[in-house]
């Protein structure tokens, strides 16, 4: 049961990243289109910059879970190296309550902003003026994706703390 849960969250971490990573090629292509349209056809677009920025904003936000899954959220390991596996797991289980709190706030408040924005169909105040609520909705969604990874780490640490062995 515990093992199954961790396997599922691992898949979430991996695939969320694999799916959104190629979006980098999309915003690159949009910007290239804008540059070509502007310099070669003298026809700049109204939408390219805002559109590519939206995709980028959504991508790196959602990418937090993948980054965490890859173990790339930077941490300092000066003291960690001198600790036993078990002590390290207990410490992590305690301090990772902090990201848990952050994530709950992001889901709660981010969700509130999203619903408010959706209810009045908020648009940006630029000339292009695309709807803003999808981007607002990304914040709670990204936080939820990250939540799966943080909870999985918590479960792993708890397992190590109780049995003294890492969960395989």
């Amino acid at each position: 049961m515990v093992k199954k849960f961790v396997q599922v969250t691992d898949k979430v971490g991996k695939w969320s990243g694999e799916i959104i990573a190629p979006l980098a090629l999309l915003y690159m292509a949009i910007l290239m289109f804008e540059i070509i349209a502007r310099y070669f056809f003298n026809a700049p677009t109204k939408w390219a910059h805002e559109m590519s920025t939206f995709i980028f904003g959504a991508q790196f936000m959602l990418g937090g879970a993948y980054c965490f899954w890859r173990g790339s959220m930077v941490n300092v390991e000066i003291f960690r190296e001198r600790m036993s596996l078990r002590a390290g797991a207990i410490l992590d289980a305690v301090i990772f309550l902090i990201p848990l709190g952050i994530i709950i706030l992001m889901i709660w408040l981010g969700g509130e902003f999203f619903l408010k924005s959706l209810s009045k169909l908020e648009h940006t105040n630029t000339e292009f003026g695309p709807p803003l609520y999808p981007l607002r909705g990304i914040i709670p969604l990204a936080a939820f994706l990250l939540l799966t990874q943080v909870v999985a780490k918590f479960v792993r640490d708890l397992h190590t703390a109780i049995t003294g062995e890492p969960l395989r």
Partner: protein
Amino acid sequence: MSPELATLALFGSMFVLVMLGLPLAFAIGGVGLTFAYFLWGFDGTKIVAIQSLGIMRSTILLALPLFILMANFLRESGIADDLYELMYGLLGRVRGGLAVGTVGICTIFAAMAGISGAATVTMGLIALPSMLKRGYGKTLAIGSICAGGALGILIPPSVVMIIYGVMAKVSVGRLFAGGVFPGLLLATLFIIYILIRAHFNPELGPSLPPEERVPLRKMLPKFKALIFPMAIVFAVLGSIFTGIATPTEAAAVGAFSAIISTALSRKLKWSLVREASTETLRLTAMILWIVIAASWFSATYSAVGGPQFVSQFIQSLGVSRWIVLIGIQFLLIILGMVMETTGIIMITVPVFLPLIKAFGFDPLWFGILFVVNMEMGLLTPPFGVNLFYLKGIVPKGVSMGDVYRSIIPFVLLQLVGLIIIMIFPQIATFLPDFIFSR
């Protein structure tokens, strides 16, 4: 809460959490939100959504993933192999020539890529085994790669400068221009040092035996290795400096041309695209989650009047502004040893910049000094990112101790460069003033 107490409490608790091993983004963000809650209640924590959306809509930060994508493709493009072959033929006969050439290639790579990892990893894979095979001393070989690779953040384009530019509200184009001569200065210092060391200790960097030397006339066709890199540098930096394109647009052109270069050398495969884009996402998400979390922290700290307090407090000490500048840099170098660059920029720039302006220093020049400080941080343990990159790829027989020993002279050379730029600010400010004065 008084600003004095807030300064101590915010930075103190963040420091403790980081030391306990909590990832930087969570430590900075967690402290920022917790204090916001205790100061202003639940309403105060709304910054979690407000600040984040602002960063998600920043067009200038979009340049980051594009420059990183560019670097990830360039690494696989084979450009480095061709450049190394050219340099091997040209400089192999000189004592220390291969290490000099390594610094040279790193400089070219730095002018194409905006991160230090690209050149460090590539040259670690190509130049390090080659130099060790020719009997080069381990320390000289490794040192030249680490120090050369670190030039990536000083010579434009630079991911670090983009983040500094956003935080300090300095034009990224001007910062890029400001990094050109300081970067070349450091590269020159490294090269002079290598030549002198190898001249007096030939066993550190022996010249190639005559039978292994390539005749110069055979070298001519190899010069075409320079064409593509020069074209990229010209397109990316040229379009920014002439004002034709924004840094973000130029980054898109750079990424696109890097993909073309892998296609031209027949290395463009789906697996490479997947690898390059997931690596880009990993690094981009890592940097931007720190940026977002730090924006919550700064919002809280600014709201309690922290930056003004620090500025007034230091001004009230009555010490010379130069002492203050040196003190700030000392602190930055220490922070560079233990923290990741993005985090340092995000938390120190809002605090120090008002002070720098109050003392009449140029924020652009300070930005260049800042980047050199960060470069030193890349090379110094325990958190020297470039050392980590190399750790993963060093051949057998090279220990982490060798790596640590090898960087000492190069860190000292960076310090010399830093002092020169402090005494002669024109090295940093001349080019941006010249280019953007129109």
